[in-house]
């Protein structure tokens, strides 16, 4: 049975490729038969002509029989389908205007969706390139190595754990001194991520101890750029911060730590044993691999118990741990995830609007084709066949639209990536891959079918007799189609309103954010990062000497004001300490409030133009051996010294060695945005560099204010710094205005995209209502003519048409407002100082939409008023 079937299928397939051959064979076979019969008839004595006719009579309906044979030899349904496609193609080519509008509409919708989907695919859907990434969890807060190893040993949820802390190290084996980002890790870090090295091996547990061998594992880019991809690199040594490290491994090209950027990996116990042993220095990002079968919530329950135990054992550092675990993917995509989901929702709305327009176009066309359909129905075309034909057309259009959308998406993706949202930096997988292509094909097909069905159905609801009347333009048979189109246009306006409100809220939030003062004047300020090597600058006085000399030389440059700060504003470096105030009632150990801490030198507040609210700036006299002084910001005064004169008050770091080293507050300065513009300023304490006790904080940022752009400034600064010490790497050369822009980048990205989608939605909705109104005016030409003939004024006609449009628009706006009130709550995390129900935005958007709709309706309405009654009456 099967072989019979497969044989048949095979013969049929052969017949597809040999269509002509098949036709010829069928003809030849019949012709042969006829000629044989004819000859026999002639031999029987019948005259030639009659012989032929007789043969044909005996043979029967040759065409019908051939048709039956051909059907047998081919896939009849496939043939029908191909025929439908040919017919549809011919129809679409014959109406290039209609085809172009439909394809463009869909291309916009599909293209925007595809671009956003490809980002979502690359960021949220592609698994991270680690071993079993779904079993890796991340601690939300940083932790210390002693805690990490205690937790791993005393809990049962985890099989592995590792931590990393990024620090700059000087790399002096190259042509000029430079800094590399060193991932200071424990042995568990690379093990937990589970990516094997490309060359050599990773640091083992036995080597990850105090005094262990100085081994380094290189990242692929570092190996490529600074060691020329040397395949014999294993066993060679490189110099990092004055120490020789032996290369034992190179990581593969696709390996990047989940949330950090590192050039090299060294053992924390080897590179910085003092930090490694400190339980209270919580400076490591930690990664945890769950044991098989352990869920995140089980791990979370166990860690909470562990937190309590640690708090009991180490009350002064571990009291408020409140450890929270996050899935790896979520922690990596955390900041972009809500934005991407909102954008995906928005772009879905754009597609819906485009689809509504598409359906509207198809319906208008269905009505225009009533006569043709009527004839075909009269000739016996079946309903299902007509629907199939109409659906073939819409699906074909949708697929062509999808293809054009794909081209738009390619443009869109490069546009997206050129906006360079920093949060997307680590995702290299944003491109059109098989998933994305499948997505495009899927939504195109779905669009063609779902939005083609209603128009296809309306095609068949044709009154044959009515449609066949010469020039019939009956106003009755299009009624249900018109209702559907009005529904679609109303929906378009509702959707467009939601998008516009979303965009409006983001724009408002963004402008608020832009007008946020960073607390200093960012114009004409250049910043550079310096780090002093440990080997030569181990002591504070030596560091102070360098700082004083460098500032002296830089300040001598014409037109340049120079100062130093440890961490520049708007950087993500977040160094805070617990601070106690002299005279305050004692607080439980470990519960003292924190304050941002920063060291400065030179006229920092003056150079940055940070207003001084009370007291004075630091002077060169505030140096080592002199009374300890501090400057605090207004937020600190508000929180810690309310109702007190801050000047003269004394503060100290909590848990400082006894006796306390009180610092006297000598000044109060305005609040400065330390981390980002959208975060409120924290309480902050500034101290002079020379009075610092933290010898390990050997880095600083130069801030240089000029009166205008100074060409060659950077080179001049480098020269002056290197004249003090030629071995100091100078990195992160950024103007303060650049940093402002970086701080705004994510919000700018969200706003631009949503605004783009909203504009797209607005245009599509306008096109939609214009199309509907223009169509209904052309349908009602006769009626309008009659009205004019019996005395209606042009203004009446204008009002008549506009009223129709206004009704749809207002209904759409009303529905849209309700939907927006429900939906904008989802984007609250993206908004800055704007409530998701901001009435001003809602009102403004409603007005914009109404005005646009009015303009779109006005053109056809004007046309209606120009109807010549005489022509219109003859028209029908």
């Amino acid at each position: 049975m099967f072989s019979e079937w497969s044989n048949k299928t095979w013969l049929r397939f052969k017949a597809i490729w040999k269509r002509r051959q098949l036709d010829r064979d069928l003809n030849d076979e019949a012709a042969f038969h006829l000629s044989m019969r004819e000859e026999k008839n002639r031999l029987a004595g019948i005259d030639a002509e009659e012989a032929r006719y007789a043969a044909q009579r005996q043979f029967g309906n040759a065409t019908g029989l051939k048709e039956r044979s051909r059907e047998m030899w081919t896939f009849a349904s496939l043939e029908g389908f191909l025929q439908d496609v040919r017919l549809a193609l011919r129809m679409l080519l014959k109406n290039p205007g209609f085809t172009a509008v439909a394809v463009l509409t869909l291309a916009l919708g599909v293209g925007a969706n595809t671009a956003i989907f490809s980002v979502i695919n690359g960021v949220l859907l592609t698994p991270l390139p680690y071993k079993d990434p779904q079993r890796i969890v991340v601690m939300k807060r940083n932790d210390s190595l002693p805690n990490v190893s205690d937790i791993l040993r005393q809990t049962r949820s985890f099989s592995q754990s590792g931590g990393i802390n990024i620090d700059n190290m000087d790399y002096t084996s190259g042509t000029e001194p430079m800094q590399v980002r060193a991932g200071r890790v424990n042995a568990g870090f690379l093990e937990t991520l589970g990516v094997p090295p490309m060359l050599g091996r990773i640091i083992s547990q036995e080597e990850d101890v105090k005094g262990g061998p100085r081994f380094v594992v290189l990242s692929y880019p570092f190996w490529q750029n600074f060691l020329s991809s040397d395949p014999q690199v294993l066993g060679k040594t490189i110099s990092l911060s004055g120490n020789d490290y032996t290369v034992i491994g190179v990581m593969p090209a696709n390996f990047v730590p989940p949330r950090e950027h590192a050039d090299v990996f060294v053992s924390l116990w080897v590179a910085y044993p003092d930090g490694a042993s400190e339980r209270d220095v919580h400076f490591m990002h930690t990664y945890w691999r769950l044991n098989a079968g352990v869920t995140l919530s089980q791990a979370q329950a166990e860690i909470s118990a562990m937190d309590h135990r640690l708090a009991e054992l180490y009350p002064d550092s571990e009291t408020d741990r409140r450890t929270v675990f996050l899935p790896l993917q979520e922690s990596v995509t955390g900041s972009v995830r809500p934005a991407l989901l909102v954008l995906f929702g928005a772009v879905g709305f754009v597609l819906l609007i485009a689809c509504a327009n598409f359906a509207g176009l198809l319906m208008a066309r269905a009505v225009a084709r009533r006569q043709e359909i009527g004839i075909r129905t009269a000739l016996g075309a079946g309903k299902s066949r007509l629907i199939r034909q109409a659906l073939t057309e819409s699906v074909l259009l949708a697929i062509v639209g999808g293809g054009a959308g794909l081209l738009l998406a390619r443009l869109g993706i490069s546009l997206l990536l050129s906006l360079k949202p920093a949060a997307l930096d680590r995702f290299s997988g944003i491109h059109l891959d098989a998933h994305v292509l499948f997505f495009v094909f899927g939504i195109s097909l779905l669009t063609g079918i779902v939005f083609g069905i209603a128009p296809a159905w309306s095609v068949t609801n044709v009154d044959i007799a009515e449609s066949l009347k010469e020039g019939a333009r009956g106003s009755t048979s299009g009624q249900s189609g018109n209702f559907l189109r009005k529904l679609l246009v109303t929906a378009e306006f509702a959707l467009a309103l939601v998008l516009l409100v979303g965009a409006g809220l983001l724009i408002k939030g963004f402008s608020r954010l832009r007008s946020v003062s960073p607390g200093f004047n960012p114009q004409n300020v250049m910043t550079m990062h310096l780090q002093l090597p440990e080997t030569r600058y181990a002591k504070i006085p030596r560091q102070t000497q360098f700082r004083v000399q460098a500032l002296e030389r830089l300040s001598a440059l014409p037109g340049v004001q120079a100062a130093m700060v440890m961490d520049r504003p708007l950087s993500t470096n977040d160094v805070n300490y617990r601070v106690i105030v002299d005279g305050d009632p004692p607080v439980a150990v470990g519960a003292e409030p924190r304050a941002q801490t920063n060291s400065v030198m030179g006229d920092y507040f003056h150079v940055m133009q940070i207003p001084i609210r009370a007291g004075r700036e630091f002077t060169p006299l505030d140096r080592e051996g002199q009374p300890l002084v501090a400057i605090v910001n207004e937020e600190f005064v508000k929180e810690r010294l309310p109702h007190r004169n801050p000047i003269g008050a004394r503060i100290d770091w909590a848990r400082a060695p006894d006796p306390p080293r009180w610092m006297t507050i000598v000044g109060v300065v305005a609040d400065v945005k330390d981390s980002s513009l959208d975060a409120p300023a924290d309480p902050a304490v500034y101290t002079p560099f020379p009075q610092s006790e933290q010898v390990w904080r050997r880095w600083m940022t130069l801030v240089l204010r000029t009166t205008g752009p100074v060409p060659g400034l950077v080179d001049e600064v480098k020269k002056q710094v290197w004249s003090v010490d030629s071995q100091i790497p100078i990195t992160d050369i950024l103007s303060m205005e650049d940093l402002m822009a970086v701080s705004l980048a994510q919000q700018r990205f969200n706003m631009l995209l949503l605004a783009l989608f909203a504009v797209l939605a607005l245009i599509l909705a306008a096109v939609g209502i214009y199309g509907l109104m223009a169509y209904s005016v052309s349908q009602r030409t006769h009626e309008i003519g009659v009205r004019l003939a019996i005395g209606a004024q042009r203004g009446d006609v204008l009002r008549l048409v506009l009223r129709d449009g206004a009704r749809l628009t207002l209904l759409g706006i009303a529905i849209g407002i309700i939907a927006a009130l429900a939906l904008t709550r989802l984007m609250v995390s993206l908004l800055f100082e704007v409530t998701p129900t901001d009435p001003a935005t809602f009102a403004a958007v409603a007005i914009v939409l109404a005005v646009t709709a009015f303009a779109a309706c006005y053109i056809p309405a004007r046309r209606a008023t120009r109807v010549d009654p005489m022509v219109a009456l003859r028209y029908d």
Partner: protein
Amino acid sequence: MKEKCENPGDLLQGTLDLLILKALARGTMHGYGVAEWIHQTSEDILKVEEGALYPALHRLELRGLLSAEWGTSDNNRRAKFYSLTAAGKKELAQETEFWRRMSGAVARILQTA
């Protein structure tokens, strides 16, 4: 795969298939030959619309009961020659047996008064 029956009411179809198989049991021949053989053997009792022979031939070919080959006829014309396959021979035997029993049964029924 069950053969789809285009004309369910057509009693002759099965018969026609059987006649074709029987004709070709004598050897390879073209469509015209089959038609002639049926005419002569049935002494013109079975009047077949000759064209109807061809869809039947093609159906049998598709079912793998016949094999076909283009060749040259006695009078040097291009013609399609059909012959029975092994499956065709088996089918012929089965169908012949079936007809024998069937016609015997029908005859017996008709003989009873």
